[in-house]
């Protein structure tokens, strides 16, 4: 197991590469999901407000 993490002496380069890739990919999911919640909330506000002004 220790040998696996050691990566034949290239641990720093290999694991940093995989780590950075993971972070960038994760951001590409988390940010759109946050944006999704935000736009749905704004849509709800908009239509609620519109409903009230019509009455």
């Amino acid at each position, binding site marked *: 197991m220790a040998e*696996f993490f050691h990566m034949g002496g*290239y641990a720093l380069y290999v694991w940093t590469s995989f780590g950075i890739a993971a972070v*960038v990919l994760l951001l590409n999911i988390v940010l759109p999901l946050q944006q999704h919640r935000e736009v749905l909330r704004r849509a709800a506000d908009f239509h609620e407000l519109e409903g009230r002004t019509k009455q």
Partner: protein
Amino acid sequence: MNSNASHVNSVAMKNPGFFTRWFHRMASPVWFYQISGKLLPWLWVLFAVLLVTGLYGGLVTAPADYQQGDSFRIIYVHVPAAWMSMFVYMVMAVSGAIALIWRMKLAEMVMVSCAPIGAGFTFIALVTGSLWGKPMWGAWWVWDARLTAELILLFLYLGVIGLYSAIEDKRMASRAVAILALVGIVNIPIIHYSVEWWNTLHQGATVTKFDKPSIHIDMLIPLLLMAGAFKVFFAISLLLRTRNELLERELPRQWVKQLVEEKDG
């Protein structure tokens, strides 16, 4: 004569061909929103399977390289990211062309949604390349053709993002971005062939050439699995972003109202 022609026309309008119907349905926002919502869970499952098998194969079962030792394992993020950086650009440019020619709103949204994802892949390719170059070439960065062209690709993506957010009217912004994306397409063959056209430190193609791939099968299979995982990831992220863009633009519409009411109820 005239009435005959108009009769023919009206028949054609009532019975559009399969392709025309498909094309118009593709452009329908509600239809796209529903179908993409149904597709996403399946894409997540596929992504998970490809990622887990690809990572296991690449990090555990693939043998170490006879020259580069275990450092070659960076290939499993570097190469899929580099391939995707070009693939996403092609999707973006083709969507831009469709948006320009047919004024299809959905194509505009797909185009602008591609840019941040493509920028992410390009960033991964550049940084992991740097982390691979340091132990193998002895330098974090060299100004050679392949690396420079890939850096220009990153600037093209950032240019698309910046231009789109700088213009208030989103339809006009889309047209400007589409032209930029189409002009920037010249960079793609330059990236791909740079290792052949110029003397470069970057190694030549091992997989994407007409010859047999010069890579051992135990190393190749995980690479293809990871490439598949990255491609499915792109589909997921693209759908998420395009759905947001769609909601944003269609916010006052009736179907969005129904959508938020269903969520609340």
